[in-house]
C-alpha cells in the first residue's frame, strides 16, 4: 500500500519516519521524497497489515497522510495507446497487452515522468 505524506513546516526537522518505524516495527520503503527546509512530501510503501498502524502513528505526529489507492489516472478519451509512458516509468506502471497500454496504478510512486511524457496529456497524478 502506498501512503502520501505531507509534512508541515513545524515538524519537518523531526525524525518522523524513524520514530514510526521504531514504534510500529513496520518495514517501510521510501519510494519518493522531496524535502526542503520548510516542508516535505514523501511516498511510502508499507505492507497491507501494517498500513493502518503506520498511518495512525504518522497522524499522531502531525503528518497529513493520504492513502494512494489510485495514484495516477488516465483519461481514456485522450489515450491512443502510443506507449510514450511505458519505457520511461521507473516502476513499470504501464505495459502493453496486445498493443493496448495497460496500467497497474499500484506500482506508481507519483514521480510524474509519465505526465510530461504523454503526448496526449491523458495522464494526471491524483492529489497533485
Amino acid at each position, binding site marked *: 500500500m502506498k501512503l502520501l505524506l505531507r509534512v508541515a513546516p513545524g515538524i519537518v526537522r523531526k525524525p518522523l519516519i524513524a520514530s514510526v518505524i521504531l514504534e510500529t516495527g513496520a518495514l517501510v520503503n521510501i519510494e519518493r521524497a522531496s524535502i526542503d527546509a520548510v516542508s516535505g512530501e514523501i511516498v511510502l510503501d508499507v505492507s497491507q497489515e501494517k498500513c493502518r498502524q503506520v498511518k495512525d502513528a504518522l497522524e499522531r505526529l502531525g503528518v497529513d497522510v493520504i492513502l494512494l489507492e489510485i495514484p495516477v489516472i488516465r483519461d481514456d478519451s*485522450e489515450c*491512443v*495507446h*502510443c*506507449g*510514450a*509512458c*511505458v*519505457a*520511461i516509468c521507473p516502476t513499470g506502471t504501464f505495459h*502493453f497487452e*496486445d*498493443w*493496448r497500454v495497460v496500467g497497474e496504478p499500484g506500482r506508481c510512486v507519483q514521480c510524474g*515522468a509519465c505526465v*510530461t*511524457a504523454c*503526448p*496526449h*496529456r491523458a495522464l494526471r497524478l491524483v492529489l497533485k
Partner: protein
Amino acid sequence: MAEKTLSEVNERIRDGSVRVVTAEEMPSIVDELGPAGAVREVDVVTTGTFGAMCSSGLFLNLGHSDPPIKIGRAWLNKVEAYGGVAAVDLFLGATQPSIDRGIEYGGAHVMEDLVSGKAIEVEAEGVGTDCYPQLGLETTLRLEDFNQATMVNPRNAYQRYNAATNSSQRTIHTYMGTLLPRMGNVHYSGAGVLNPISNDPSFQYIGMGVRIFLAGSQGYIIGSGTQHNPQAGFATLMVTGDLKQMDRRFLRAATFTRYGSSLYLGIGVPIPILNERLALSTAVRDRDIEVPVVDYGVPRRDRPSMAKVNYEQLKSGMVRIGRQEVATSSLSSLLMAREVAATLKGSIEKGEFVLTQPVAPLSLAGSARPMKQTKEFPYVEDVMSREVVSVTEDISVAEAAQAIIKSKFDHLPVVNSAGVLCGIITTWDISKAVADGTISQVSQIMTRNVFSTTPDQPIELAARTLDTHSISALPVVDQDGRVIGMLSSNHLSRLFAGRRPR
C-alpha cells in the same frame, strides 16, 4: 504467373466477393499458399499507420466578409495561420504554437477541435486595399462554416523511422519523446509490418492519385512527400483529404514536452494483389524492416548510430546496444494502426471504398540532402580563449584565489596530474570559503560535475549549454578531456557585438 487487373478487383468490391486481408495476416498466407496461391486467394491487402505526423496542414477558405477583407495575418484560437494565400485562404500548420498557450495548444489542436465540432475564434488583420477595404475582423466559425477545409500534408507515413536513444548524462525531451540519460530507453515510431510503403517499397501500386484512408476520410496520395528518400528506405507520402469527412478517432492533437505540438494521424493504403511481385512485397515481416538506433544525446544533424535493429526486436520491448539491454517503447500507436487497417478492410468489403488507378508511380529516387548553409557560423575554437589558468585539487583556497587573480576569468578549471578536467571553482566559491573560515582546500569547494565543451562544437550549442544550466563559463576540452581553453558568456556577447576575439 498468376495475375489480375485492378478493374477485376474493383468488380469484386462492387459485387461483394472481394477478399481483403490486413498486412499482418499476409506473411503467413504467402508462406502457406506461395505467391501464386496468394494472388488467387487475396485481392487487397490493407495497411495502416497511426503516429505523429508533424508535417501536416490545412487549407481553409473562410468565404468573403462584407465589407471584404484581404487577410494579411490571421489566428484561429490564437494559433497563427499563414495568410499569404489570396484574400480569404489560410494555411494552418500542425506544429504552429498558440500565442496564449504555446505548444500545449497548437495548429494540430485547432484541427482536432474543428473535427470534434467545436467553435473556433477567428481573428484577422486586413491589408486594406481599394477592393478589400476591411482592416480587421473577428468571428466564430465551426467546421461546416468554412467553404473548404482541405488537409494537405507535405510529409506523412514515413516508410520507417530511426529509433531514438540518449547517451548523454541528462534527460532530454525530443520529438521522439522523453529520452532518459545513459541510454535509459529506446523510443521508436512506425507500424513495421503494417506500414503502407514497407508493403510496396518499389511503388508497384503506390503512386499519385491512389485513394487512401486518411483519418476516417477517403483521401488521396498527391505524390512523394518532402524528404522522400526511397534509396535509403525512407520514402514518404504527400497526401490530401477533406477535413469535413474525417473522424476524431483517427486525428488527434499531441504535444511533445519542450518540443512542440504535432498531429497523430491514421493513414491506410490499400494494395491490390495484382501479381506475384505484389504478393511477395506485402508478405514483409517486422524482422525484415531495419532501422538504426540513433543517439539524440548528440545535438547535431549527423547523430551517431548506436546499433541496427529491426521492428521485431523493437516490438519485443528490449533491444541490445553494445553490452546494454535497453527497454523500448513505441511512440506511434500499433493498436490504432491495426484499427486503421481493419477499418479500411471493412469499408472495402462493404463496397464503400473502391481502389483507384495511380496516374504516376512515386519517384524511386528522392532527395534528403543536408541543408546548404551559406552563412558561416562560428565554432567554439573560433571564439574561445586559449590562455587558460588551471589548478590541481590539492592546493589551498588561498592559492586558488591567487590563480584566479592572474586568470582572465572568474572560473578556474581543476585538473588532475594528466591535465584532465575534474572540477571547477568560481570566485563565488572562493568568497564563500573565505566567509566560512573553516574551509582551506580547493577539493572541499570545487564542483565535480562540470559541464564542458569541445573546440569543434558550434557556438550555438555551447550557448545553449550555458543557458540551460544557468552558468557563465565552460572549460573547452580535447578528445582526452584535457583543458585547452575557456569559453565564457563574455565571448558570446563580444560575438553578438560583432567583435571576433583573436
